[in-house]
């Protein structure tokens, strides 16, 4: 025990003058909420209580106390960190505010490397003055910093809104869709009337109702569930004409299935799972189009698959997911990396299904180097000759005859 800490400001004292502090925590929570963290009123109450318990003796303790109550995802940590630094340092706060408000900002500040979350936090803090600051300009600057490749074309995209007919058709198509790996047995059971495993619990429950005179066998069987689905969809220039349909398909799929994770990639990987969870398809797709910055640009399949493998594979492929890879396989970067990464992906999932819409002709041969690199590592290769509507897409995915889509068929084609 270090008695010095006790003298500073013990727990009860800080709780006693907690009025102002509580207000400040509330404002801080509001800032976090504005920056995209999910901080509810209950978390604020928790935080005030926690600060009262821990006391404010050290800045570090205060930081982690608030952290433990406000942050519930690892991804939120950088935003919290930035917000904490901005919010709980009044003098700097004033300086920052001055900078934000003056049109001619200090040039030194512009050179500073922008840390993750900073833009969002400052937008949240200074939301009132948003109009003068032209936040889009700031966004563009960050984009420029992150640009990795010359071929990378960054722009967002406008999609035509979905008509009611289209929506209805999409829902119908999805409802009929039967994916290749549909049912996975779980270790949970459900009652069945057919002869299967004995369900002792139901049997005894039933037996007590008749006073134990009648013990009738009851059965249960393993329950089956849909495996999780992970979709990796190519939205590069060569696939641009399908992007809208893909997104609508993915939205409908997300709505229908239990666990769907969606990633879009061109030159970089974007996780749009949360965006696609919006109920309204137009809203969801608009959110997606904002989230993705490399619409219709180049393709780096190998590099983005690599990023997926490192950052996401363990998080989303955990429970025997099937992976739908929607891409034309036209890769200009090294094939070696592509082969390595798709091999890794193949070994991390239950089934890897490649859907290739480029193949317009029946006599397709896998000539492109990227396609040849990927073919040996997929479980199913499903080419589509014409892809004009979602029913085509569902049709291509829904055919259950797996042997027809064995990638070896295509590889032998090439050899012959």
């Amino acid at each position: 025990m270090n008695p010095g800490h006790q003298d500073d400001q013990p727990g009860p004292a800080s709780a006693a003058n907690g009025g102002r502090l509580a207000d400040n925590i509330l404002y801080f929570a509001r800032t976090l909420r504005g920056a995209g963290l999910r901080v509810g009123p209950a978390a604020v109450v928790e935080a005030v209580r926690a600060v009262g318990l821990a006391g404010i003796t050290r800045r570090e303790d205060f930081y982690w106390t608030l952290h433990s109550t406000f942050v519930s995802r690892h991804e939120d940590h950088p935003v919290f960190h930035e917000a904490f630094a901005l919010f709980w340092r009044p003098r700097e706060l004033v300086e920052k505010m001055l900078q934000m408000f003056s049109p001619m900002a200090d040039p030194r500040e512009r050179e500073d490397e922008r840390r993750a979350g900073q833009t969002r936090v400052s937008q949240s803090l200074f939301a009132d003055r948003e109009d003068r600051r032209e936040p889009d300009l700031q966004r563009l600057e960050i984009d420029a910093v992150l640009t990795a490749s010359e071929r990378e074309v960054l722009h967002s995209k406008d999609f035509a809104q979905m008509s009611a007919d289209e929506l209805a058709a999409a829902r119908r198509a999805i409802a009929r869709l039967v994916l290749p790996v549909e049912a996975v047995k779980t270790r949970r059971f459900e009652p069945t009337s057919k002869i299967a495993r004995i369900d002792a619990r139901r049997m005894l429950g039933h037996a007590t109702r008749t006073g134990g005179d009648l013990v009738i066998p009851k059965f249960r069987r393993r329950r089956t569930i849909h495996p999780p689905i992970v979709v990796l969809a190519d939205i590069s220039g060569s696939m641009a004409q399908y992007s809208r349909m893909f997104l609508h398909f993915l939205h409908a799929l997300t709505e229908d299935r239990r666990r769907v994770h969606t990633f879009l990639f061109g030159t970089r990987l974007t996780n749009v799972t949360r965006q696609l969870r919006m109920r309204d398809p137009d809203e969801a797709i608009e959110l997606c189009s904002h989230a993705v910055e490399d619409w219709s640009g180049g393709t780096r399949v190998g590099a983005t698959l690599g990023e997926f493998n490192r950052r996401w594979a363990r998080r989303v492929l955990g429970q025997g997911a099937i992976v739908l890879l929607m891409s034309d396989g036209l890769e200009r970067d090294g094939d070696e990396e592509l082969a390595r990464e798709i091999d890794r992906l193949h070994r991390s999932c239950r089934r890897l299904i490649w859907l290739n819409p480029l193949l317009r002709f029946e006599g397709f041969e896998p000539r492109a180097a990227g396609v040849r690199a990927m073919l040996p590592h997929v479980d199913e290769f499903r080419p589509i000759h014409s892809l004009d509507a979602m029913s085509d897409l569902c049709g291509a995915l829904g055919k259950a005859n797996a042997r027809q889509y064995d990638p070896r068929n295509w590889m032998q084609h090439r050899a012959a």
Partner: protein
Amino acid sequence: MSTRRPSASFPDTIDDALALLATGGYVADRALATVLFLSLRMGRPLFLEGEAGVGKTEIAKVLASALGRRLIRLQCYEGLDVSSAVYEWNYAAQMIEIRMREAAGDVDRGKLEKNIFSDRFLIRRPLLQALEADEAGAPVLLIDELDRTDEAFEAFLLEVLSDFQVTIPELGTIKAAEPPIVVITTNRTREIHDALKRRCLYHWVDYPDAERELRILAAKVPDAGPQLSAEIVAFVQKLRAQPELFKAPGVAETLDWATALIEMDKLALDPATVSDTIGVLLKYQDDIAAIEAGPGKKMLDEVKAELVAS
């Protein structure tokens, strides 16, 4: 304040929490101590997320031994259900009971039902055990690798974790007199639902920095000399910084490696030894090949140079 409290009581300050973990041989950073302190004082479950092998499970074990509480561990797996997590009836015994009654000519239905669904035939699984009073105080309930279960079980946990009670249809609701100390760990192979996280205090357990890792190594593998320890930690830290690794080595791997090197009577690292024992640190063939192919040797040279310089 200078007198030491008995180990069974909760820490009064964050420094106490840090000391509590230290008594159990766990070298924690202040962030973890803060969250742990709050979790104990507020009676909230502690939700620990992080890569495999950073010592999440160990926290619960150390907590239980330092507080002198019983540790109840629920290892999660896919398809974990109520009958293996909470309770199960002893069906065989129930059947025999019914048969005995029948033989004795006792046909009172209400009495029979009450009798065979009684405490006597209840098999308690970890969650139910954790709600029971223990003379040493409420036990530490470790729910390990929660991400391995499915959403259905997660939803069930909501009731247990918010009210510390479970409902058994045949018996009624069982409520804990004193809520257990709950530690939940996940490796993030799946996102846990926000509703569950909201009931907990969240903490991301990160890889330790070099200074803390050295202290961990000194505490856990005291036989390793200062030279070897410094080299091991520096090498592992460099390995973790390699972006292309599929799985970076955790603290557990560092400790394993140190133990392995001591068994081999090594006092310092050399390229041949690193090459022979790299399998202790890296568990994927691709990762081993990637490190062996180039950066391994360079990293070792850098480690040596840095240690000489400092």
